[in-house]
């Protein structure tokens, strides 16, 4: 048992919980990536309607703690995931950009909802047509607002992406709860 080699991505409970996991050999890089997905601290940051669904996601019913994602940090210095939940107005844009810059590397961004992804139903003087105009986005989630399930799926996709060490690129989650 103790010499058994377990690939990093196959570590499973109950060994994880008891700590009786034996010895595992894997690339340090993989270990770090795996650890990152297990200790993500999102920034407690909501902009508009989508933030209410984000709150619902980490509240009692959907319970984001199941994915180890419930430790929301109010300070950008302690966070490594920014969920842009809502529409970004031109007045708010510099603030969002500043928050992003204040987050330590490595950091990821989820654009939650149509507004953050592409401006949504507003195409006018006040709203930024997608938060990717000011910060790089890793995962886009469609929906107005996306259902909590869609947000969770998006987060899991981000975990996958980090585990596989994919270069920064975009994942689009479509056809999920298009009707909010």
């Amino acid at each position, binding site marked *: 048992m103790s010499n058994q080699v377990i690939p990093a991505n196959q570590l499973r409970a109950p060994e994880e919980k008891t700590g009786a996991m034996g010895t595992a050999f894997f690339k340090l890089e993989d270990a770090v990536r795996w650890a990152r997905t297990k200790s993500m601290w999102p920034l407690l940051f909501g902009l508009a309607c989508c933030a209410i669904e984000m709150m619902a996601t980490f509240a009692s*019913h959907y319970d984001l703690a199941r994915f180890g994602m419930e430790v929301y940090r109010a300070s950008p210095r302690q966070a490594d995931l920014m969920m842009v939940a809502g529409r970004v107005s031109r007045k708010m844009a510099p603030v969002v950009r500043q928050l992003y810059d204040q987050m330590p590397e490595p950091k990821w961004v989820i654009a939650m909802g149509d507004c953050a992804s592409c401006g949504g139903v*507003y195409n006018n003087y006040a709203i930024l047509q997608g938060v990717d105009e000011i910060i790089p986005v890793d995962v886009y989630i469609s929906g107005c607002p996306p259902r909590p399930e869609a947000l969770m799926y998006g987060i899991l996709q981000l975990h996958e992406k980090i585990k596989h060490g994919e270069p920064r690129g*975009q994942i689009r989650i479509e056809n999920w709860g298009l009707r909010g």
Partner: protein
Amino acid sequence: MAIATPLSETTTLRVGDPVTRLREKFGDKILAVSEFRGETTLQVAREILPDAARALRDELAFDQCVDVTALDWHLQAKNAPNPHELLFNDSPLSDIEPPARFQVLYHFLSHAANARVRLTVLLQEDDAVAPTLTDVYRGVNFFEREVYDLMGVRFEGHPFLQRILLPQTQVGHPLRKDFALGYEPVEFTHNIEQIEARKVKNVPPARPRQAIFEVDGGTTEVPIGGGLTATIHERFDDSANETMLINMGPHHPSTHGVLRVGLQTAGEKIIGAMPDIGYLHTGIEKNMEYKTYTKAITLTDRMDYLAPLSNNLGFCLAVEKLMQVDVPERAQILRVLLGEVTRIASHLVAIGTNAMDIGAVSMFTYAFREREYAMDIFEMVSGARMMTSYFRVGGCALDVPMGFSDQVREFVRMMYGRIKEYRALLDKNPIWEERTIGVGAYTRADALQLGLTGPMLRATGVNWDLRLAQSYSGYETYDFEAPYNTRSDTGDIYELYRLKLLEMEQSLRIIEQALERLRKTGGPVMTTNRKVAPPPKQELQQSMESLIHHFKLWTEGFKPPVGFVYQAIESPRGELGYLISSDGTNKPHRVHVRTPSFANLQILSHIAPGYSISDLVGLIAMTDIVLGDVDR
């Protein structure tokens, strides 16, 4: 504590008819009077406006100025029919030379007489200045700033006439008709390279991006976010140099969104607080001018996102008032029923977040647990959890599905028990009492002056609920009451919490009665007026006329008659009013939303001084603002 006289008992106060009284007093300075859909509008000369407002307040018991807004008649006078000229046919815009461009509207409300009246002044483009009413009603402060910001009308004598919603660097006034919507073209392409090209390649260092605004056909480039701090800091006199200026928000976990408060503190104690809003300004009012009436409903959802159905209802009622459409009985019942479920869901979030801000996190998880059941109900009727757009002009989008009543009945049964649970958790909780009783106390006089409505007004002992006083959707036929503070005439955090729980119980009562009626009432949920509502599918195959109606409705929508109306409803936060001005086309000429959060927020700078920063989060939660509702 003095025992308050509930306002309802003073209704014996005789108030004269405002039109006759003002005519007597100001003679020919009252230029014209119109009656339209039961709304009285007096067009007055600009110079007597403050005096007329004072007369309304002191002699005629119009104790609140609920709303100030403006319309722009640019280009309108020549081309399209003009509501103003139709309403006041003895006073065309071109009476003044050159023709007037702006029309500022003031809405006054009298609780004692249960009446509304509107004053209006016409202003020319190069002389768009009106006297301020802030001396008469302090609550118009934010509203006048909003009109200045979005319309460019100046108010002489206003204490702080600065942009309120848009960044200080904004050029132009977006709600003017010659200001372009300013959209970016949408790329309809499946070519992934083209889409990728839009992505940020090299992210520049933290430097505000440049924003491009279109003004009068040309473009101006201005840095966004410039001058963010200037306005707040200018406001405070810090010559003694012993105080600190602290910036709270717009990114702060307890400001309920992107509210920013500029604070001046001495140690922990707050000396001055000034809300800075507009970080969620979405341009919804402008966008609505480019949508047909039916499509505009979807935008209303997204303003007060804790109570989307109330927003739908207000808009639909306003259009129905303009078009004089009747709504079938069953739709009325559904509107009441779902409106009250919305109220409960909204109050749940309000109480939950209020308690969480003060430290009682478990209340938040309880509240969100119950909110899910309300979301299930919305999802059942519309397919969407939050943005339902379920109410339409003339009725509701669809009939409710099977099993709806059972679900709602189950919800009601559960909620009665859960409210008891909340009471057990908080009512006598010493920490909660310590942090809320007497905190943020404000008086009835302040509430009336500052234009507070809804629970915030009732907490000061005013028995005023639009569902009862100026009933709509058949609320008058239900047996319920609007809880208000009967013990004193000051409101505080605890009183608001108490009232919200009581209101939820009353809402449950209404829902029970509505369920009973729903069982007995069949029939359509949409009006049969084919000018507004599409014909049912089966009819399309049989009748050519139905086909035409259907085609017309879906291609160009309906065209309300020329005119403007104001319709107010009691949203969970207070008076939610829609002013819709129609020029007879299929798109509104102007939609203005009088949102309760916008007015209620004004109390913050009034009550915050003297408290510590940790109390401030409770005070913000007390005002129960939704930033989408404040900024639109």
